[in-house]
């Protein structure tokens, strides 16, 4: 059984268990069933030119790699332009963000290679390539789709020393709501997932959860 068939079977199995109270069934069948390929790109503008000039269907751009739907016409034209298209594995490229119901400890769950986003009382929310998410299932975890508006960022307050710029937080990819400079220091409020909070704390920042349900939030 090849892996794609295995995944499809897995998704059927989950669909059959849709009466479970534990979240919405999740298909791990790739959304894109055509062959995909990757090329090296110089910058983002090049991506938009490829889309405009070659009608390239992009899957994802990450760093200097662009993943796209590969058909013979497109790949030949890319070769003519000096690119070197390489076939790519959709199961490594396409990712899912999912609920993983708690069982055992977190470190054990993360051994599959997925990336933690949030910790909820009954489940973790993680992200990873289809192959890694599928491996969670084979290891016995219950994996379901996200609920509405998940994952929900936590509202946090980060305290920086007086005079320090909030620009230092850029690498954490937060959703910064506000910055307030007080004589005692700089207060940044932001939306952050649990993994980002972990990262901030590991880097030595003082992070405080403000609320779990923001005002007016559902």
């Amino acid at each position, binding site marked *: 059984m090849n892996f794609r068939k295995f995944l499809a079977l897995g998704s059927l199995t989950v669909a059959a268990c849709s009466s479970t109270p534990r979240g919405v069934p999740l298909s791990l069948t790739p959304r894109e069933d055509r062959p995909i390929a990757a090329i090296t790109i110089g910058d983002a*503008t090049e991506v938009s030119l490829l889309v405009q000039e070659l009608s390239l269907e992009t899957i994802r751009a990450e760093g200097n790699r662009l993943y796209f739907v590969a058909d013979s016409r497109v790949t030949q034209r890319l070769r003519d332009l*000096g690119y070197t298209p390489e076939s790519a594995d959709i199961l490594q490229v396409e990712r899912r963000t999912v609920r993983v119901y708690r069982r055992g400890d977190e470190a054990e769950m993360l051994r599959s290679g997925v990336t933690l986003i949030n910790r909820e009382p009954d489940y973790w929310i993680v992200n990873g390539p289809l192959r890694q998410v599928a491996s969670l299932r084979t290891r016995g975890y219950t994996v379901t789709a996200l609920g509405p*508006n998940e994952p929900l960022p936590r509202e946090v307050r980060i305290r920086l020393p007086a005079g320090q710029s909030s620009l230092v937080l850029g690498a954490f990819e937060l959703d910064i709501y506000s*910055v307030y400079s007080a004589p005692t220091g700089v*207060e940044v409020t932001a939306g952050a997932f649990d993994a980002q909070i972990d990262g901030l704390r590991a880097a030595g920042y003082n992070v405080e959860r403000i609320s779990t349900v923001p005002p007016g939030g559902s």
Partner: protein
Amino acid sequence: MRIIPCLTLAVGLGTTQAAAQAIDFTAYHTAAQVDLEINRFQTRFPALVRVISLGNSLEGKAIRAIKISDNPAVDETGEGDILFVALHHAREWLSTETALYLAEQILTRYATDPKVKFDVDNLQIWIVPVVNPDGYLHTDVVATPAGYRYWRKNRRANSDGTFGVDLNRNWGFQWGLIPGASNTPSNDTYYGTGPFSEPETQVLRTFIDSRPGLKAFVSYHTYGELFLRPWSYTTSDPPGESTLLSLYERSRDAISAVHGHVYVPDIWYTSSGEATDYLWSERRIAGFTPELRPTTAQGGGGLSGFSFPPSIIIPTGEEQVPAALALVHDAAAREVWIRDHATDTGAEPSAVWTASGWSTPFWVSPDIWTTPAELTEGTTVTLHVRVHNNFGAPVSGVRVEAYWTDPRIALEFPALSSTLIDAQTVNVPPVGKTLTMSWTVPSGTNSWGERHWCVGVVIKHQRDMPLTTQAQRSSNIAVRNFTTVAAAAAGANRQVAATNFLDTDAELRVLVSPLPAGWAVRMPDIRELKPYALDRRERARPQPLDPAAIVRKGRLLKATGAVLRAGESVLIPFTVVPPAGAPTGTAADISLQGLLLPLVAGKREPQGNGYTFHVVVR
């Protein structure tokens, strides 16, 4: 609080009275109510408003513009355009209210305020209150019970199972740069699968591309009481920073004069793929991002700042309108101006690129000259600048800035590489005024070994500011190039320089203006010349580029000229050949023209200018 009884009230008052009723700004409007109010603008002001759908959102909702003009049914391409947009981010409801408030003020003042009437009669004003209609509906948890009041992005179903792309990280300039955005789809600053991957940003780009006369852009956001200008992706200054700074300072003062709130230019975080950066990078159109009320201190910080009580709507609108109307007037008015060429009337643009080159050399302003006319290096000369007045009455407080720099094909003023000669603040009577400045002509050669310099003049006035750095697109900017010898000798080897001053890769095309009979110019194929980085002061290069990428972009777009990376220059050698047997003293003016076409998707807006040499047979 949101307005619930609106429709009931309309019925109760009767159709005619309700149709004429001003917008109620005591509560936030639902998405449906915003649509209703947009429609009512056209009903209430049929002679001034057309509601136009610019395209559809991802879920098929119309992204609608309120067009305000004295002839709204006609596309008056001879007039300029200005664009105000709001609600890139779904939870920022106050931005939509502010856009509606601005439209209401312009339309109700038209009948009584001569300045507003002048602007509406001479400009096309476009207001898009909701860029992100899908996200907006999602934040209305009454209409959308499964929604979320603090949703930020659009409603793209990402391939990983999460939703949403941050539309103000999805524009095409510096897209994908981290820090400044996120490649994680679940993050609120997720930049999407590619630049302009989202229908909402595509719709705006297509509209912007369709408006060659677009002069300024404002994108309302909340919150923090900030007034931001490019760049957003970096803390480095952009080319033309002093122009943007002047516009910021005037906006800040106009806002604070109303209720005393001072909007500061602080950058809390960098934003890549942002709207105003795109406009400034690719079109040199001034764009601003007001982050509206409240301040962090008022709002308590956090999410509550996005859902501040609706009592904030009117004072926010009141303080934003003067700043917005000042930009509108900049775009509409020619109160003080300077000629780009002898037949320049102040119309913008003063020259356009055609198949045979620039329609008129615009780098030879007759309003900039020196005494003596022939320059000698190292000597101090008098620089004369003529400023015209189109206001019909004296205009006081006109700031005139003159700069010199190395000449280039493709030049802007002010550039970070230009040097201020002098700046004076003067009164300009209705007949105009000639200023004099002292200029010490540079000694030695310029960066490419020539005695050839360019002077640029920028005119600023609180009621008429430049909104770009491009001479041909602004009546407030003019350029004149000078040689420090009376004339170049025919037959001698010479060179001109071209710099890609855009912050994006570009194609350079060079051509020679029509020559007098018998004269010729010999020049190599510019594609064979080796470009080099000359002046990196002008730009930040935050990410290393694949050197092959520029070539691939050129091939994708079938470039016929040389391809230059951002900041690169190229020296172009040439020889002027006089007619055979021409006697000594035979002379001709030889102009070389340049054009930069950015290597970007969408419309490729040409930018550039030229050199003129007076060549004499010796």
